[in-house]
């Protein structure tokens, strides 16, 4: 949703200072539910107009029974777990590798010059285009899924970290040196904590991308997951299942966003504007 602006590394900012972060935080549950109104209206109209036998637009009431069928034979739970596993490992790897690379590239102009063209090239490659290469090299398995997701999610994290490194005030580093902190201590006690908000902002931007790419890879390769189940339902002409699974995918995305939001407000409560003012 806000990915477009936040992905721009030059405008990337700390979650604590960001207006968007604040406004999402202040949104209480009532307006958020009100935001679902168009969807509810659409589904109601669909329910009234659609016919249960339609091959394209089965009404929402049929989705539930389709979903219950999937749940009862265990396929749904297995698919959701597979998708979440790929998502978590992929995003986790992207976070670690992206943050380290961002730190290196942001901290050394030489490394930046040497690596930036490669990054730009790799970043411009659509993840869907990487799928055939990844299946060729790695086969149809979990490793392949994770690799594609990692490569798709890494850029937001890398670029945000790089921008974060450049924003660290020289005075902060000078103060640490003046207080006789060694290199390791400076990284551990000053640089890493100073970068955490930038890295986390990158993760917030990368997470929806990672969800989408996980589903995409599963749809394209039929390797186990919600995406594979969608593709399979579509091939076997079960439209109610397809719609039901799309809802599940949407719910997963909301869940991921909610969890990250909670982590953010917990971890960064020390930042100005994050805390509630009463301690």
């Amino acid at each position, binding site marked *: 949703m806000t990915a477009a602006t936040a992905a721009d590394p030059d405008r990337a900012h700390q979650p604590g200072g960001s207006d968007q972060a604040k406004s999402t935080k202040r949104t209480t549950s009532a307006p958020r539910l009100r935001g679902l109104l168009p969807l509810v209206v659409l589904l109601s109209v669909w329910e009234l107009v659609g016919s249960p036998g339609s091959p394209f637009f089965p009404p929402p009431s049929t989705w539930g029974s389709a979903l219950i069928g999937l749940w009862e034979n265990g396929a749904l739970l297995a698919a959701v777990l597979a998708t979440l596993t790929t998502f978590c490992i992929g995003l986790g790897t992207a976070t670690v590798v992206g943050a380290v690379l961002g730190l290196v590239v942001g901290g050394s102009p030489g490394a930046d010059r040497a690596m930036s063209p490669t990054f730009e090239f790799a970043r411009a490659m659509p993840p869907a285009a990487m799928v055939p290469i990844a299946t060729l090299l790695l086969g149809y398995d979990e490793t392949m899924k994770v690799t594609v997701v990692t490569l798709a999610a890494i850029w937001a994290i890398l670029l945000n970290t790089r921008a974060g490194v450049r924003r660290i005030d020289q*005075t*902060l580093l000078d*103060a640490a040196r*003046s*207080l006789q902190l060694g290199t390791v201590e400076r990284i551990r*006690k*000053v640089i890493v904590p100073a970068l955490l908000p930038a890295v986390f902002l990158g993760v917030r931007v990368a997470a929806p991308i990672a969800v989408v790419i996980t589903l995409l890879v599963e749809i394209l390769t039929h390797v186990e997951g919600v995406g594979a189940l969608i593709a399979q339902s579509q091939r076997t002409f079960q439209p109610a299942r397809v719609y039901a699974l799309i809802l599940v995918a949407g719910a997963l995305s909301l869940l991921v966003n909610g969890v990250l939001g909670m982590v953010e407000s917990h971890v960064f409560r*020390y930042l*100005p504007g994050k*805390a509630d003012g009463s301690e």
Partner: protein
Amino acid sequence: MKANEQPVAEQASAEDRPQPQPRNTFECRNLSVELRSSGGLACICRSIDFEVREGEFVSIMGRSGSGKTTLLRILGGLLSPTPGSTVRYYSEQVDGPPRGVITVFQNYAASLLPWRTVEKNVALGLEGKVSKDEKAERVAEALAMVSLSKRAKDYPWRLSGGMQQRVQLARALAMRPSVLLLDEPFGALDAMTKTTLQDELLHVYEQTGATVVFVTHDVDEALYLSDRVLILQGDPSTIGESVAVQCSRPRDQIETKQSEGFLTLRRKVYEAIMQGHD
């Protein structure tokens, strides 16, 4: 008997001051600095020569942009001068921050770690170097010196600008430094707090025998605190004037500042700064 006592007596007096020939804490010879600017390298200071004696309190004055902060960063080992310059801390060439030399930065907000509470900020330089108990004791002592004991558990951004600057000062004092490099430490304070902290600083200075290099825009402050005031003039700047302040210590906010000697020096320093302006 007397002969035996001699070395002991000498040591005791070395810890006091003044001695006939104190050592130089800092010695700068032919010091030039060039920094990158939009139009290539800009020369900030050229061929500066000065020394700071052990236990001396030296202030550096000069208009904004004359290179006071730059000079302090060089003494603190945070910036390298152009090749050919000599900067010594005792007998060693300065190459990185020397142990025991602590800088208090002009930009206090950027020098504190926003994710650490006040007391954890103050403890930063002590962690892993002294025992837990000693750390807690020194942090509490330093915070008491700057009257911030009550705010120990707060995050720095909840504090006013002047309070944040005092946290930075406490962080330096907790290190028990032998040299303090202070960059406009009282610039953000109201007159009352400023006088209190000036006296607190003089107290610490007289107690510990530390060497202090102090940057300020306030002529009265410079004269009140210092043994010597250096005035940067010109562009690139050099030391245009070095004014010795002979007012006796301990000093007194009212008496010292109204003494004849003080008023004469005040005029002299003002004139030197004005000279730099045209």
